[in-house]
């Protein structure tokens, strides 16, 4: 049987990979994916915990996270498209009109 810790480590690993990706990649779409990775890292941990504790809350939260993530993706995509129309780039280094 797989100990709970393994799942939790896996979850945190996925979370950290997502975080790392978010901080290092410059392409907005990849950054999207990274955030999804972070959320899924959380989801793995939640489902595992929920199962091990025989408590439904974790799974409920997971469902909500998935739904919110979808909405987030839609909004994020819309924002990127709106930006793209004014400035055709998906490269983040070029998006720094405001600073200081």
């Amino acid at each position, binding site marked *: 049987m797989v100990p709970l810790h393994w799942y939790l480590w896996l979850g945190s690993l996925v*979370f950290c990979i997502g975080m790392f990706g978010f901080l290092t990649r410059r392409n907005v779409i990849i950054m999207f994916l990274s955030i999804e990775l972070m959320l899924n*890292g959380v989801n793995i941990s939640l489902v595992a915990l929920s199962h091990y504790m025989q408590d439904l809350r974790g799974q409920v939260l997971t469902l909500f996270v998935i739904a919110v993530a979808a909405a987030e993706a839609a909004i994020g995509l819309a924002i990127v498209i709106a930006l793209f129309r004014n400035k055709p780039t998906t490269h983040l280094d070029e*998006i720094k009109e405001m600073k200081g």
Partner: protein
Amino acid sequence: MDITIIKPILPEIVMAALACVVLILELFIHKKETIGVFAILAVAAVSYVIPQSFGSAFNGMFISDGYSVFFKFIFFINLILAVLISIRYLKIERSEFGEYYSLMMFATLGMMIMASATDLIVLYLGLELMALSTYILAGFIRHDRRSNEAALKYFFLGAFSSAILLYGITMIYALTGTTNILAIASQLQGKMTTQLILAIVFLVVAFGFKIALAPFHMWTPDVYEGAPTSITAFMSVGPKAAAFAALGRVFTTGLIDFAPDWRGILIALSILTMAVGNILAIQQSNIKRMLAYSSIAHAGYAVIGVIAGGAEGLSAMMNYLFIYAFMNIGAFAVVIMLRVEGVKGEELEHYRGLAKTHPLAAVLMLIFMFSLTGIPPTGGFIGKFYLFKAAVGAGYAWLAVVAVVFSVISAYFYLRVVMYMYMHEPEGEPAALATSTPLGLALLITTIMVIVLGVYPSPFLAFARLAIG
């Protein structure tokens, strides 16, 4: 099926329903002002059901108590004032769409849920509803690149922070097997573990992001500058207050046993925030950006209330946010007034000699700047006074002294605006003002409230104190 169990959440239900109605109305109504008026009426309807709402629902996941109701009133004020200052402004920005108002209502709904949440799941949902709506609102002027950029930055960093929040929630869940904020304390039994450190830190970071505590404030200046000014005003009060509500609830009930730990973190962040906010505000020549840094600094002050804790600290924090709502939106309302066709009106230079060309606008700005500085007899003074008093009462006199020092520094950039208006001669063509009845109404309300709160604060103080119970 017992309908009465939904009573505590009735205001939220009404708000959600009316927001949907507003969304549909947008499809059929071409005069968008009407929708704005409808949004304000919706607030009236929601306020109407609030008195009957007290109680707890959904197995203790949701509560309507004095604390949440006080915050809800802050959100309503925020919404009403933001709607009032938007109506003319949106026309000037050529972004008159009805979704704007329903999004504001949805964002307010999210805030209400956050304030009432006694379960981390509900808290997360409220936060996301608020955040997703404000992401769109920040980028609402679609043809403006700065607005796009603001939305993009806010969105990515916001999503990042909500992932961090989720991880914090997961840690708490792992430790306690529950997500109920009230049950957390009893489950933890005051035991410190590595996971708990993770949980506390992650929650501080996530809430710190929404409140704009340094160093999690980095998004604030850019987003506030790029977003439509009316939304900047909206964002600088509502979401911030909602995050404060959640912070206060989670940390002073669920994690109260670990107060020394999170208090230490918050003190450090508070000082850093006041420093960054005030010092960088001095550097700004764009008034929106300056107000963004100022709002960062004010978050640093308000967090002192949470640090001080107890009924006195929390009520001081609530009061501060209440007062801040008026003075900050008032200041933004003046900024909006200077935005006319073809002139951004955001630069400090635009305020040169305003007292000569538009004395009334200058006087109003003067009042708000005085209030933000904390000069009596304006509301800002009262807010700061009670915050610092709470800090002294809780044994953090030195922190109050630090905050006072930073307040003095803040006078430099607030009063610089006043100096530009009163000491400098107007240059070139006199600036035009975009006035309108709703904007005038908003200015009237904010000015009166700033003065009344400064001169006769006791009823409001009593209200906050009562709300804490």
